[in-house]
């Protein structure tokens, strides 16, 4: 934690913000330039997913969830941010050797850059979600102002998980593949296209051990149901994230040092 607070204490906060800005915009630019449709992909992907789920769960195996488009799309956006950040951040040490070898470069910023890039994609897709909400006839309520709190919480949680993952990837380069498989499983175990009320009661408490369940439910609470989230559950989740953060960060620093030393 010492070095984490170190980068703010140096009185170069504005430089750190610029660094974050440059690295995030670098990632975005590379994405734009590499694919013909550029940023459109970040919208097309969840829309296609939505179309498939709508087809299956409205027509093939109908489930009784009102305002299904808003319901699924909100879940997908939240999940995609989490999944893509975690997946990409796992490679941040092994893919950024030149940056890590740069004297004075704050290595700890790398996962933050990845999660930030994901957040920007999330925000770019947000208007579409708002459109779905409007189509589904859901009133926008003041509860929506809690959105930044949820975004911040998800941000911190994701960053705190990426630190140890990126560190493990230094020793075991197939971490990313294994993570892909695990995330795929977790995708089905998170109530994205079904409702948590469909889960048997005695399993629900187990479900809530998955932090993404808490987050997805909270987003829907404020956006679809127009109600404030369950603060006590979010409070526990914040504490857990903040507890993991310094431990993960320490392992991350040690492994990134080890990584640059390896020839």
């Amino acid at each position, binding site marked *: 934690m010492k070095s984490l607070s170190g980068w703010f204490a140096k009185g170069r906060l504005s430089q750190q913000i610029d660094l974050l800005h440059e690295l995030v915009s670098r990632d975005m630019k590379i994405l734009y330039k590499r694919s013909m449709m550029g940023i459109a992909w970040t919208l097309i992907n969840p829309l296609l997913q939505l179309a498939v789920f709508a087809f299956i769960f409205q027509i093939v195996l109908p489930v009784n969830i009102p305002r299904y488009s808003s319901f699924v799309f909100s879940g997908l956006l939240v999940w995609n941010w989490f999944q893509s950040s975690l997946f990409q951040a796992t490679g941040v040490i092994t893919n950024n050797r030149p940056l890590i070898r*740069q004297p004075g470069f704050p290595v700890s910023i790398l996962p933050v850059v990845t999660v930030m890039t994901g957040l920007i994609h999330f925000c770019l897709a947000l208007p579409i979600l708002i459109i779905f909400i409007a189509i589904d006839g859901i009133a926008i309520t003041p509860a929506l102002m809690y959105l930044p709190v949820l975004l911040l919480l998800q941000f911190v949680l994701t960053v705190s998980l990426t630190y140890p993952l990126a560190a493990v990837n230094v020793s075991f380069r197939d971490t990313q593949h294994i993570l892909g498989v695990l995330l795929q499983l977790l995708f089905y175990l998170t109530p994205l296209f079904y409702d948590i009320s469909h889960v048997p009661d005695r399993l629900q408490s187990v479900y809530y051990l998955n932090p993404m369940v808490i987050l997805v439910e909270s987003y829907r609470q404020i956006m679809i149901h127009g109600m404030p989230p369950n603060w006590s559950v979010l409070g526990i989740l914040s504490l857990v994230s903040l507890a993991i953060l310094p431990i993960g960060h320490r392992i991350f620093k040690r492994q990134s040092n080890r990584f640059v030393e390896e020839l």
Partner: protein
Amino acid sequence: MRYAVKVEGLGKRFRRFHGDRPLTFQEAVVAGLRRMTPVEEFWALRDVSFTVFPGEMLGILGQNGAGKSTLLQLVGGVGRADEGKVKVNGQIGALLDLGAGFHSDLTGRENVFVSGVVAGLTRREVARRFDEILAFAELESFIDNPLRTYSSGMQMRLAFSTAIHTDPQVLLVDEFLSVGDIAFQAKCLERITRLKKEGCAIILISHSAEQIEQLCDRAMWLKAGQIFAYGEPEVVAGQYVAEMRSETRKRTPVRPPQMTRSGVELRVNDNRFGSLEVEILDVRLTPATEIKSGGALRIDIEYLAERPIAAPIFGVSISHKDGLVCLDTTTATMSIPLSSIQGHGQISLQIDRLDLNTGDYFADVGVYEQDWKYAYDYHWHTYPFAVKSSIQTQGSLCPPHRWEVSKVTSDLISKHY
């Protein structure tokens, strides 16, 4: 004056792992976790201490693998030292891995911004210096093209120009003169000299002793991770050149100490030098340790040549332990023609009389390439022996001698006058 860089007792240990250390979970499960532990540890740097003040330039010489780059990395805060401390005052700039952080899909301009900010500037600071960076790199008309359209020389120029315009107080430079063409190199050099005048502390790695001598205020010679020489650049660079010139050292392979048949330890680069294409396996002196002055000495040299070696030269030199060479003889100077040798063999030198004075001596034995280009094997100060003389005299020789005193006749004296 406040130092810019202070390094105290720096040590860095590297771990060597099994060649087939598992790199994935899959392999780890298959192999078991036992191969995860390092098989060997070695010090890449040890006991390195120095101080660099603002406006000073320290040059670091050393062969590949001597620990130069590791040292520069640790000073730059990359990696972690196992021993000792590095203290740096001020912002560090680095001319290391130039252009490695560039992205080929981004334009030159975008890359300058990213690397400037990565090097520690704010966006505004990069913007303010942008024209200067561009002018220095001489790339004005290309700057908005993607980097992949640049030649490698252009990329280097842009990288160098960006790195040098970050106003560092401490600059770390690794072999910078490989950048671009001669004209650009001169410009880089001038720019570095100017930074130094403005008070920037510079640590420069170079293979060129000449460059270090010209540019630096102080020089350090790193050898196997330790400071071998430190001080005036002329002196250190001179020593470095003297050693590097000797072809023999370059060709001396790394090899663990080994014993001759008679049980003398040979340590490469300590008492043994040479390419070891021909190996001297054993050297026997008869009599073994002590010779009477004027006595005979026989030196038997056993050798092994794995592959055929054309016309090697064998040599023996006998020197006093103070360094005075008393005898130096070779098969070449004695016109002993040796044709090609291969396999085991023996060659002997018979000295009928060794008229040396009392003292401790060494027989240095070597076998050399036919044109004296380098040594195949040379054992230096490995075979000691003592000479005992019954007569007490000064000087290095003690041949049989006597004084004869005769009467001077008075006629001779008178004739003379």
